């Protein structure tokens, strides 16, 4: 066993003799290549205005599409291929997607915020339209007819009305040769009325291999001469900013594992070994004395500390005169709401494979953004970004920024130190304990209605810290404090879309109180960031006003909505659930198990979500079981309604899990919920049935579909609890303990 970071005698050339074959087949980044260089020979991103960046037509009349949005398990690859095939008039069987790769694929930004179809789709559609026009120009010359007389079916261009009499395949026009054509910006795009593939229930292209076991996930990658690595971190993260500083590393503690070696860089500690089990054992056995960090508030004092701290305040929305509005209200309801830290916690802990050499690095990772990953890796490795190549391999569903950058950076650091490829997988406690959690949130909401049942005043105050832009491994390896994304008014704020924007309110104020991340847990965007919290607080307040008016909550919302699309999803969810108008919590039952039904609205950015929840509450045990959830989503043009339905199902189950069960536990020292027992999630036996409803609007632009029913679901469940019991729960997760306390406090 040796400490590799200090060992310069390690004979790198010998290693290359043994394992050098691995690197043949890709040219390392940064080497100048002639213009005719093969795709992938140079560091990207390639020119986004060149057709060749996006599309290659092969001699066999198939196409490869190059786009920059990752398949995270949400099915976006299928949707992107539908968009490209539609515009090119190809069949789905003729088109496939290239692996995301910083030497190959265009930079379309992060695959986040449900933006693949919304923002990535139009770019790809434009590229496909440009390619189609270029192909038609070639066909026009070949066939000797005007472009406007040509039609295309499954990549065969023919003269309109002549059948196959005069026809040529795309593949025969350009097969495997570059277009060498820039975007004109004027290529006509197909009107939605002529869509054949877009808007249909195309089967997902990745599922056959996923079901047979042939699909290659990042976890499956193995290369010759590879070592297995594991990170060594304290069990459970400490306060953000404190990092993890090893005071002493006891090398003797892993001497019994002969192939294991310690790798250190700055404060980073890892182990590598010839086989995986040795690496796992060594990471667990290695004795490290860690410096104690500053104290955390722990769950017990979290909200008191947040509420009492000096904050940076931003007015997010300010309309009318809030004081005047409340003065004229017939009913006012106000309350504080408490929402926990929650984890991303991909089911398969993050994994990466790195091969770092003096002249360049290749890292395979399940990042959400290959170009950002490259920039971060370049900093960690102290290499120019052009010498770092990142290839995307799918991991397991991440739902935002879990520890994928950490796994990639840990693998890269260790590969650089030992001069061999290193595969790192996080252990369950690493992933649970060192996540960039979805931040906790504290809300104070007040709203008022007039006697006619119209909302006339709405005020939302939200406290939360922001997200980190760095990663744990980067911070500790470079011994720099973590960086929070911007600060002040540019930090993560209350989302105005999720806080009353669905209603017409003449006097509305939304204020964000930014708490600094220092001294809290590391935060990052978790699927539908904070929208679950906003909806939990906001939509319960709305429901309370309906109750104050003795009005059906569906009817109350209907009266206060001004937008037909909000109304559309509300009615769609209510119809699916066969909603019967009534005043909530009437009659109230003293039975052991009582049922309740609730309704709620929510969104993330643009799309519209509505939900109805049927739940049961055991008034003796405090256990809530969600029985049936109905969710309606209007995401404009649903490119693949079957996949949007699947997303609604997943969102609703995950939201039920989050509002009923999930909470990061931590004390003053650090995070203590390190596995699926201490951080429970929804299980199979207790899952509700879900009825998804897609409100298809072919004529509207496609907007996000992966997050927008989550807030509504949480709200509907919270409101159903009131219906069942006549009590309000103002803190989630809605655990039996909190349920029993709320029931005991009932008047």
């Amino acid at each position, binding site marked *: 066993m040796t400490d590799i970071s200090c060992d310069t005698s390690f004979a790198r050339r010998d290693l290359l003799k043994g394992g050098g074959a691995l690197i043949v087949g890709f040219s390392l980044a940064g080497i100048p290549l002639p213009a005719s260089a093969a795709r992938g020979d140079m560091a990207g991103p390639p020119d986004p205005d060149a057709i060749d960046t996006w599309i290659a037509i092969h001699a066999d009349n198939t196409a490869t599409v190059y786009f920059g949005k990752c398949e995270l398990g949400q099915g976006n690859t299928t949707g992107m291929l539908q968009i490209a095939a539609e515009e090119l008039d190809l069949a789905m069987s003729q088109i496939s997607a290239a692996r995301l790769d910083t030497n190959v694929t265009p930079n379309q930004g992060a695959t986040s915020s449900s933006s693949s179809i919304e923002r990535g789709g139009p770019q790809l559609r434009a590229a496909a339209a440009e390619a189609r026009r270029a192909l038609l120009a070639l066909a026009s010359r070949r066939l000797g007819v005007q472009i406007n007389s040509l039609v295309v079916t499954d990549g065969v261009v023919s003269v309109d009305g002549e059948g196959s009499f005069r026809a040529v395949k795309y593949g025969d026009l350009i097969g495997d040769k570059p277009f060498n054509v820039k975007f004109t910006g004027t290529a006509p795009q197909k009107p939605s009325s002529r869509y054949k593939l877009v808007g249909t229930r195309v089967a997902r292209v990745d599922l056959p291999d996923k079901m047979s076991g042939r699909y290659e996930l990042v976890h499956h990658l193995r290369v010759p001469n590879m070592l297995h690595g594991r990170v060594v971190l304290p069990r459970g993260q400490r306060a953000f900013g404190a990092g993890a500083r090893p005071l002493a590393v006891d090398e003797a503690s892993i001497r019994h594992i002969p192939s294991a070696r310690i790798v250190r860089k700055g404060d980073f500690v890892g182990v590598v070994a010839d086989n995986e089990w040795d690496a796992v054992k060594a990471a667990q056995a290695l004795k490290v004395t860690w410096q104690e960090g500053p104290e955390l508030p722990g769950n017990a004092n979290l909200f008191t500390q947040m509420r009492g701290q000096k904050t940076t305040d931003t007015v997010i929305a300010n309309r009318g005169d809030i004081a005047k509005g409340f003065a004229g209200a017939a009913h006012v309801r106000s309350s504080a709401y408490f929402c926990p830290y929650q984890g991303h916690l991909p089911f398969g802990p993050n994994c990466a494979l790195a091969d770092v050499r003096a002249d360049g690095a290749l890292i395979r990772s399940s990042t959400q953004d290959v170009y950002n990953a490259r920039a971060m890796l370049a900093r960690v490795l102290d290499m120019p970004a052009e010498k770092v190549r990142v290839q995307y391999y799918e991991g397991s569903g991440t739902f935002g920024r879990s520890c994928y950058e950490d796994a990639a950076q840990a693998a890269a650091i260790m590969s650089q130190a030992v001069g061999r490829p290193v595969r790192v997988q996080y252990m369950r406690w690493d992933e649970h304990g060192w996540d960039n959690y979805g931040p906790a949130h504290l809300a104070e909401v007040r709203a008022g209605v007039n006697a006619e049942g119209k909302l006339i005043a709405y005020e939302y105050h939200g406290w939360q810290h922001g997200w980190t832009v760095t990663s744990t491994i980067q911070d500790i390896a470079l011994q720099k404090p973590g960086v929070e994304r911007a600060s002040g008014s540019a930090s993560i704020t209350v989302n105005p879309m999720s806080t009353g924007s669905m209603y017409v309110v003449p006097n509305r104020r939304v204020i964000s109180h930014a708490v600094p991340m220092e001294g809290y847990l590391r935060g990052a965007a978790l699927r539908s960031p904070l929208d679950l919290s906003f909806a939990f607080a906001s939509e319960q307040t709305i429901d309370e006003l309906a109750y104050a008016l003795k009005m059906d909550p569906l009817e109350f919302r209907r009266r206060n909505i001004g937008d037909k699309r909000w109304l559309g999803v509300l009615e769609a969810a209510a119809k699916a659930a066969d909603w019967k108008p009534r005043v909530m919590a009437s009659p109230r039952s003293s039975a052991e198990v009582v049922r309740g039904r609730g309704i709620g609205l929510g969104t993330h950015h643009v799309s519209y979500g509505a939900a109805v929840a049927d739940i049961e509450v055991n008034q003796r045990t405090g256990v809530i079981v969600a029985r049936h959830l109905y969710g309606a989503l209007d995401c404009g043009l649903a490119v693949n309604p079957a996949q949007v339905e699947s997303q609604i199902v997943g969102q609703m189950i995950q939201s039920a899990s989050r509002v009923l069960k999930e909470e990061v536990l931590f004390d003053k020292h650090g995070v203590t919920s390190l596995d699926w027992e201490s951080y429970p999630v929804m299980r199979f036996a207790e*899952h509700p049935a879900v009825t998804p409803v897609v409100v298809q609007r072919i004529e509207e632009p496609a907007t996000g579909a992966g997050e927008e029913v989550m807030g509504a679901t949480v709200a509907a469940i919270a409101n159903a609890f009131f219906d069942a019991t006549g009590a309000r729960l103002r803190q989630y997760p809605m655990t039996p303990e909190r349920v029993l306390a709320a029931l005991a406090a009932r008047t």
Partner: protein
Amino acid sequence: MSDIKIKVNGRESTVSVDPDTPLLYVLMNELALRGPRFGCGLAQCGSCSVLLDGVEVRSCVTPVSKIAGKSVTTLEGLPALYAEQKRLAQAPALHPVSQAFLDRQAPQCGYCYNGMTVKAAELLAQNPKPTEAQIRAHMNGHICRCGTYPLILEAIQLASTRMAGDVR
């Protein structure tokens, strides 16, 4: 290190590993199988599940030395096992459970589907016509973080119906 004989998907092989190595790491590394995968290492989640003489076990906590004389079936071996159970002349391309998951377009990321498939195949071999409550109870040790439980449930019911039509 010891030489340990194992039988996986009907094939015998000898692996040279520490006897305390969990079966999972042998399946993933020595045998390069892609079905069983690491999820927690604590037998809490079911992503590493395999069948041991037809009974689902968590390979992440099963030492390879403890499976001597037993037959391991992974996701990859389920079609052949099904053919054997049903006395079919030829193994189908996919086990009926996998086929139903595919036809129902149930998975999202699909990481948990190794365990879901293995566990559902175990159930339907023991109880070809399970009730919904029986499916829920049987599958309860398997977590799906994407939240596709309702689709998994439907697909298992579909597979059950279809399997009734296959000759035994």
